[in-house]
């Protein structure tokens, strides 16, 4: 079952909730719609569920028009952030609801309904709680009932609207993994809305990053993380250090750090480099250019240590991440002076987060000398340049 969303638009008074959104969803895939509040992801989900109207554009399921169907006929399962369980019905009756409201012709018999409900309760690990009311369940249990209820009608698509937003952290992580396992078992096309990028990165086959009603980038989690296509995606996903660059002769540079070239040949006044915390080397040999940084603070977070570094040359505080063991091996302490330089970065021609189609250059350091002769292309929207030689893995 393929879902083809084409140029979907939805305006509310004053702003565009969805602005020309196009997306193709493969059968059985787990797609995450990721973005900040107001990015349009929930609007998109609700339009797919049949709870909102669209202004223009189309959605086709297996080639047939999807949006002209009323919500009842779409064979969609929807799970809400606050469960939306029917509070006056027991768990069993909640799960059976979708089957009981079917028209006479397609309605299963009472016995069949009961069997199916039992099976679903077992699958969501809630057998034995069938006669409880929602008010007597914990948040995690409620969400599992909501999922069982959505699955009872055997939908083609499962839509989840920030399903774990109302749960506490530990329950969230457990349910997250359980949901993914369930998806792998059922192979049901799933669209999952979230503002939590950790969740999206962990669960999804593909992530669509949305901002201001547009899709900024679609791709697998690794691609989104390693090869962000716009400054917004860079800043939204994971932590990142933003370093302003300037043209220094025929290279881009920021204080002592020099990149090998300038792909835009001085065309752009203020390119910007995004460096992930794990891409900062902390003990750069004196032969290579690096910043002098003072280690201000070490934040221990389990297996990773976050280091706060102040670079005087840039007048900027950078954050670096290293493994806990490496921290011990380097014997770092607050107050130390380090030689710091990025091992890799994503460089954009413009710092303007709102602009689409900025020129992009994915830069890697070399273990020997800088190779100035990169294969430069014209500033294309997705111009990923790598040196031919293997670089040090970030």
């Amino acid at each position: 079952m393929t879902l083809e969303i084409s140029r979907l638009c939805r305006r509310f008074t004053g702003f565009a909730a969805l602005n020309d959104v196009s997306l193709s969803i493969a059968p059985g895939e787990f797609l995450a719609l990721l973005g900040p509040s107001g990015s349009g992801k929930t609007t998109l989900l609700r339009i797919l569920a049949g709870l909102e109207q669209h202004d223009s554009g189309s959605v086709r399921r297996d080639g047939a028009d999807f949006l002209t169907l009323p919500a009842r006929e779409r064979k969609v399962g929807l799970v809400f952030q606050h469960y939306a369980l029917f509070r006056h019905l027991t768990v069993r009756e909640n799960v059976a609801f979708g089957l009981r409201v079917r028209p006479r012709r397609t309605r299963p018999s009472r016995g069949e309904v009961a069997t199916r409900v039992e099976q679903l309760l077992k699958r969501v690990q809630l057998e034995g709680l069938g006669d409880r009311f929602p008010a007597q369940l914990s948040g995690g249990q409620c969400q599992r009932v909501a999922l069982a209820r959505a699955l009872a009608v055997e939908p083609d698509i499962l839509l989840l609207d920030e399903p774990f937003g109302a749960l506490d952290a530990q329950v969230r992580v457990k349910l997250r993994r359980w949901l993914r396992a369930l998806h792998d078992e059922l192979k049901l096309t799933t669209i999952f809305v979230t503002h939590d990028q950790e969740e999206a990165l962990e669960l999804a086959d593909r992530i669509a990053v949305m901002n201001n009603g547009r899709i900024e980038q679609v791709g697998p989690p690794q691609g989104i993380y390693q090869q962000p296509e716009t400054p917004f995606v860079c800043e939204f996903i994971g932590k990142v250090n933003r370093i302003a660059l300037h043209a220094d002769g025929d290279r881009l540079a920021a204080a002592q750090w020099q990149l090998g070239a300038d792909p835009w040949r001085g065309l752009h006044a203020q390119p910007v480099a995004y460096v992930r915390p794990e891409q900062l080397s902390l003990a750069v040999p004196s032969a290579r250019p690096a910043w002098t940084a003072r280690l201000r603070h070490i934040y221990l977070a389990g297996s990773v240590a976050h280091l706060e570094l102040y670079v005087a040359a840039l007048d900027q505080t950078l954050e670096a991440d290293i493994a806990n063991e490496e921290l011990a091996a380097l014997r770092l302490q607050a107050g130390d002076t380090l030689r710091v330089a990025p091992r890799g970065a994503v460089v954009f021609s413009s710092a303007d987060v709102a602009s689409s189609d900025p020129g992009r250059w994915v830069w890697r350091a070399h273990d020997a000398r800088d190779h100035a002769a990169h294969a430069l292309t014209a500033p294309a929207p997705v111009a990923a340049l790598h040196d031919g030689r293997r670089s040090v893995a970030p």
Partner: protein
Amino acid sequence: MNAVALPRALARRRPLVPALLIALALGWLAAFLLLPLAAVFVEALRAGVQAYLASIGKPDALAAVRLTLLVAAIAVPLNLVFGVAAAWLMARFEFRGKALLGALIDLPFSVSPVVSGLVYVLLFGAQGWFGPWLVAHGVTVIFAVPGLVLATIFITVPFVARELIPLMQAQGSEEEEAARVLGATGAQMFFRVTLPNIRWALLYGVLLCNARAMGEFGAVSVVSGHIRGLTTTMPLEVEMLYNEYDYVGAFAVASLLALLALLTLAVKTLLEWRYGDALATHAPGGH
């Protein structure tokens, strides 16, 4: 200490404060509620049980009882339907004039009942706006049962709607949306999800509506014409008997009204006691 513990702790240390408040509340209720209520029954039975039963058995009294029940039986179901429809509209839709509609629903509360009755006389009376048309078609509204029903409907319009609107707004439409996506038709959604969620507030609204419909005096008095045996409801009958110095009769009929009020209260308390947990879960905030 948290917000709950503080008053309790105070109460333990200084039992004087809660004791004073309880005494004040009980005293107030006794003076303005219990005493008059007791007086009704005392006066009704002053001449003995036989006289009491004779008063109630008089044809005029019985006619008044029948008329009161008839008017309530028409007005309450109509306002039930309207109240649910209005609450659905106000809680689930945005439209121009929504605030105006809300104000109109509350209008009967702010208008004096006598004025409400007068308005109907001005509209449907023989010299009223529709007067000539009604006379021409042989329809009497004012000084007849239809007028009583209309005036009672007007007075009791807000009760059901006002109970339901805030509840439905607070509950939100998520359960109904879930029902729709699961395949329910509009009617199925309404009867299986919406109605069960509002049933206690609806019942409470109906009880209030009924109590007011049976006890209304001002508006009904203006439109009734006080035709003994034909257009007198129980409250009107009480007044007329009292003006004729038939105190036992007046208080006897009044005692029926009082019994009705007590019955309403008992039903409400019984329901709250029996379904207390259900009431709690239907308040927003439960899962």
